[in-house]
């Protein structure tokens, strides 16, 4: 009863406060933001380059709707004040931007000077649409190497932005596949953190009840849906996508074991209809208390800890995903990147923007806002660690350190194609339509055919 009254009072107070704030927010940026911008400009001026060398130019930046975009947008006035370059953001949600970006590049490029990009980078690099960035990093007129500290970015992240040895995409976020679990339920049932997949399975079964699923995982088809968390399972079990001779081997015995465990978790301890679960279902089930555990992107933490968006704020624990019988886990990871159009008319100005946006200072502010970063200095900064749950930061940074970019299948431009076929196979196994061996075998067959083309 007390909780309810407290909730109502707190709620109404927040509502009132919010209403006042939003009314004022429209009028001017908050003081703290102005202070931040001032500070940022001062810090950037310490770099030993002439920021104003491209004064007066305009660049168009195409971005996904993402926490990063929101954070950077707020800080944009700092860049404009620093350089005199006018930056305009064109923002779209991920799927729409994929179409738009593709049509723009296929139609000859020259529209977006800088754009946010995912694994499509490798397709674009193959097609010659993106500009190699190393020359700009090494150009002392444009970049101050000490101030910028390119090495501070995780080397795995830097490796991720390379295609065939040439560096094209500058990483801007960093997230890892981690395990989230309800600490309160674990305590209630006296469970320990699972170190192996079998322990995970046991815990999930013990936690499952008619009201709450033991564990949720992505089951829906799509090269960007179930394949992502499944890959962590694949690698942890010792499987790989391709072998040294570039043959697809995701039907190896290890892969089959991984898939069977994935499906087993969902079948015996998972939610109803797991084949319809994409990342938003995974996220919302846990946030609304319908699932006790999940393995997915660490970025969900921001939603779980926000009482406006979740009922489990403060109840969640975070850990690295479990390994398999003595072998450590090999989690999946993700870095969004920004790249430059090879046909851009404002390449230097674009580079100045990229340098600014991925600099230590800006990345720290952005990291504090959206909880992801590719820079080691951000992950170890005291502000960052103070703001976010310790176990989450530990799990994420350890996972990022272990993650291996050489294992990912994205480098082949055909990835969306065989990725989709693989995802359909996994989805079939989860839905119970096919057995793991059968599904993966036919997926590999088709992949061979696609790559043989």
């Amino acid at each position: 009863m007390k909780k309810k009254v407290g909730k109502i009072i707190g709620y109404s107070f927040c509502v009132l406060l919010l209403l006042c704030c939003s009314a004022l927010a429209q009028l001017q940026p908050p003081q703290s933001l102005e202070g931040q911008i001032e500070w940022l400009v001062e810090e950037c001026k310490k770099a030993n380059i002439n920021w104003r060398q491209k004064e007066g130019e305009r660049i168009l930046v195409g971005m996904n709707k993402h926490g990063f975009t929101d954070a950077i947008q707020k800080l944009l006035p700092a860049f404009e004040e620093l350089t005199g370059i006018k930056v305009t953001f064109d923002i779209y949600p991920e799927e729409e931007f994929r179409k738009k970006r593709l049509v723009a590049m296929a139609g000859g490029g020259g529209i977006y000077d800088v754009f946010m990009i995912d694994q499509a980078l490798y397709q674009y690099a193959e097609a010659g649409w993106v500009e190699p960035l190393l020359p700009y990093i090494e150009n002392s007129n444009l970049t101050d190497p000490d101030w910028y500290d390119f090495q501070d970015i995780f080397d795995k992240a830097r490796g991720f932005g390379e295609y065939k040895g040439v560096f094209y995409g500058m990483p801007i976020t960093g997230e890892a596949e981690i395990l989230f679990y309800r600490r309160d339920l674990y305590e209630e049932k006296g469970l320990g953190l699972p170190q192996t997949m079998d322990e995970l399975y046991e815990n999930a079964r013990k936690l499952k009840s008619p009201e709450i699923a033991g564990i949720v995982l992505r089951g829906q088809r799509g090269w960007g849906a179930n394949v992502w968390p499944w890959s962590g399972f694949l690698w942890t079990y010792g499987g790989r996508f391709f072998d040294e001779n570039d043959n697809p081997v995701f039907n190896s015995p290890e892969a089959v074991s991984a898939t069977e465990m994935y499906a087993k978790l969902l079948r015996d301890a998972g939610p109803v209809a797991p084949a319809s679960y994409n990342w938003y279902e995974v996220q919302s089930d846990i946030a609304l208390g319908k699932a006790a555990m999940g393995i997915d992107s660490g970025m969900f933490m921001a939603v779980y800890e926000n009482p406006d968006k979740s009922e489990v704020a403060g109840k969640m624990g975070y850990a690295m995903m479990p390994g398999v019988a003595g072998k450590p886990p090999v989690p999946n990871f993700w870095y969004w990147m920004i790249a430059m159009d090879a046909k851009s008319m404002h390449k230097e100005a674009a580079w100045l923007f990229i340098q600014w946006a991925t600099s230590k200072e800006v990345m720290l502010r952005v990291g504090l806002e959206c909880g992801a970063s590719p820079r080691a200095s951000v992950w170890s900064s005291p502000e960052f660690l103070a703001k976010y749950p310790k176990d989450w930061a530990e799990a994420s940074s350890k996972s990022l350190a272990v993650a291996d970019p050489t294992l990912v299948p994205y480098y082949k431009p055909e990835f969306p194609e065989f990725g989709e076929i693989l995802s359909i196979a996994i989805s079939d196994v989860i839905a119970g339509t096919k057995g793991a061996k059968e599904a993966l075998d036919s997926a590999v067959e088709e992949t061979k055919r696609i790559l043989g083309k």
Partner: protein
Amino acid sequence: MVRQKRGGNAFRSTLQSFLLLIISVWALFPIFWMFSMSLKRKVDALAMPPKWFFRPIADNYIQVFSSQDFTQFYVNSLIVALCSVVLVITIGLPASYTLSRVNFKGRKNIDFWILSTRMAPPIGVLIPYFLIFRRLNLLDTRASLIAMHVALNLPFAIWIMKGFFSEIPKEIEEASLIDGCSYWGSFLKITLPLVGPGVAATSIITFLFSWNELLFAVTLTGLRSKTAPVALYNFISYEEISWGPLSASAMIALVPVILFVLLMQKQLIKGLTFGAISK
């Protein structure tokens, strides 16, 4: 429109009212659900068992209104939709009339060709359109989008109106022609008012289509000419779906549509009375 005799069939009219109720609930429920989500915080919107009683908040609407260039998107959408409707009606109606009245060699082929322009799946033509508009320097303009929407809706308007025109007996026009009216005059003054309901229906559907169209809107527009559906889509971001602002956006997007429909409703009913009088 057969008028039932009063007191003749109480059972039938109760049955009909009951059916109407079911239909309304069926049509309205998801909309109502969206509306309720627009007034809740995300954690309440998704709560299960559902929170039927809650304190509504205005934040979601505020967030939509204060989001980037909100007014511009809606104005763009309005302009594109209204222009599309006007152009489709003015270009399509005369063509439709002629095609339904006059027989000439190759008419059937023209009929079918018009129909076929609607058939092409957008995927195949998206990149070609982009290239063409780019060459013409018409990217990121409302004009290019209006042109697309007109091209997509014209076949529909022509074919549907043919059906309505065919319901009107030709003797009425023949009478006016004999009286000395010109062909255009007869069309505008005699025939057109008789197809009010058809025109209203076609306008509503054209408006709706243009208002909600997403694929070409995303591809052909840029910063200046972005339309409302694209803006709404922005609430589906990478790390979460912002149900509150998404639903609020959808509700706000409904308002012009409802207004337009109300505007056309009068036409629908007006047509009815005209039909009765002229005979």
